[in-house]
């Protein structure tokens, strides 16, 4: 088995995360340990041979053997994500290959830190693999996550993130559309002030990962550069309306 060979995974569990986001647990006959931040390609084949293929970030920790979680947002008119959300049931099989990607990755034992994570929407998925990985290996690297969601109900992994925010992990939420009563987090789009506040304790050399919709990634990366973070320490991953 190698990472470029297609294999047939069995979906063993489907977990709703929010109204538009589900996590799919895939049992892999040819499981290979991934690096946090990597993705799998997933393809669907129709009886006439027609295929649709997309890449999805791995949400689970590399330390979990034999299976992975892919957390997938249902995209309006998305051919693959809509099928996965509306048709697939546990026991179904899909073809996947991976893990793939050698750039937007973080290894708690070798990559160093401190680590600044900036995520928008389902851009939090690769960050979740990093945080779960850090917890699984008991690393002490300081990590700060700034996570932008539209509303409280759109926050993916809300409870697990709260439980992970300990021992050097700090999580900052911003809700851009509406906020529940008594909300104490940020309540606007990510901006210079917010990024400066969150990144300041780490200084200019923070290893930074930014993932989310293109406008968010563009503005966050530009803003962090203005705040004197080193461009060569900023890694970005973008998805547009068609990125899924």
């Amino acid at each position, binding site marked *: 088995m190698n990472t470029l060979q297609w294999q*047939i995974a069995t979906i063993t569990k489907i977990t709703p995360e929010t109204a538009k986001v589900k996590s799919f647990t895939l049992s892999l006959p040819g499981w290979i340990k991934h690096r946090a931040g990597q993705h799998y390609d997933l393809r669907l084949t129709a009886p006439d041979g027609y*295929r649709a293929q997309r890449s999805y970030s791995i949400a689970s920790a590399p330390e979990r053997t034999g299976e992975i979680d892919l957390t997938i947002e249902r995209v309006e008119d998305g051919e693959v994500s809509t099928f996965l959300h509306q048709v697939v049931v546990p026991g179904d099989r899909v073809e996947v290959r991976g893990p793939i*990607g050698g750039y937007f990755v973080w290894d708690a034992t070798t990559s160093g830190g401190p680590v600044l994570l900036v995520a928008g929407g389902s851009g939090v998925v690769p960050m979740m693999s990093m945080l779960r990985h850090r917890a699984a290996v008991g690393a002490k690297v300081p990590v700060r996550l700034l996570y932008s969601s539209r509303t409280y109900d759109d926050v993916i992994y809300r409870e697990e993130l709260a439980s992970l925010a300990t021992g050097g992990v700090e999580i900052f939420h911003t809700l851009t559309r509406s906020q529940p009563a008594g909300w104490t987090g940020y309540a606007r789009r990510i901006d210079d002030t917010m990024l400066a506040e969150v990144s300041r304790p780490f200084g200019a050399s923070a290893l930074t990962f930014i993932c989310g919709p293109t406008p968010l990634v563009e503005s966050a990366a530009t803003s962090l550069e203005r705040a004197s973070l080193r461009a060569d320490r900023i890694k970005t991953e973008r998805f547009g309306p068609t*990125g899924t």
Partner: protein
Amino acid sequence: MAERFVTRGFGGRPRSAVGLAARIPPGQHLVTDFPVLSAGPTPRIDLATWELALSGLVRAPVKWSWPEFLALPAEEFTKDISCVTTWTKLDMRWRGVSVDTLLEHVELAPNALGLVAECHGGYTTNLLLSDAVNGQAFVAYEYDGKPLPPDHGGPGRLVVPHLYFWKSAKWLRALRVVDRDRPGFWESNGYHIRGDPWKEERYSGD
């Protein structure tokens, strides 16, 4: 076995008209917008100091300033583009200077084999000369009749329509002629050394 696998319940979208389907490489899907993908921040480049260099294994290296570059013979290119992230966009309208035109200004060394595109921000990608000449590659500075915006690689980006779009390096500052086909940025990070969409050369080993 994998070749015969069918996903339960999957019919897929209505198939594109025959003529259109013939233009979409395997594993790709059609889009109508223009997604942005980059590995790092978008550099802001001042046209007053912008330069394009043609260097490496040439008898006398050349540099063009922005006005000099704009004075080179330019062409319209209407091309289909495929990104390794599986989007394909048809009939993208560019204006730019072909690599052939640039190469007319130098004399290549006999052992010249490839080009390394070097970019602001540190990105690099490798190309064989045989993939860059004969109208196959150009340095674009307009898209859809307008100056190329920074997030799409402006002021100038390489465009190599017949290869996956990561070969079309944004924020180009130099083309270096080399005698070996060494992997660039994505090619060193698991992606294919050449990247032909019609052969699905996505990852190294494909």
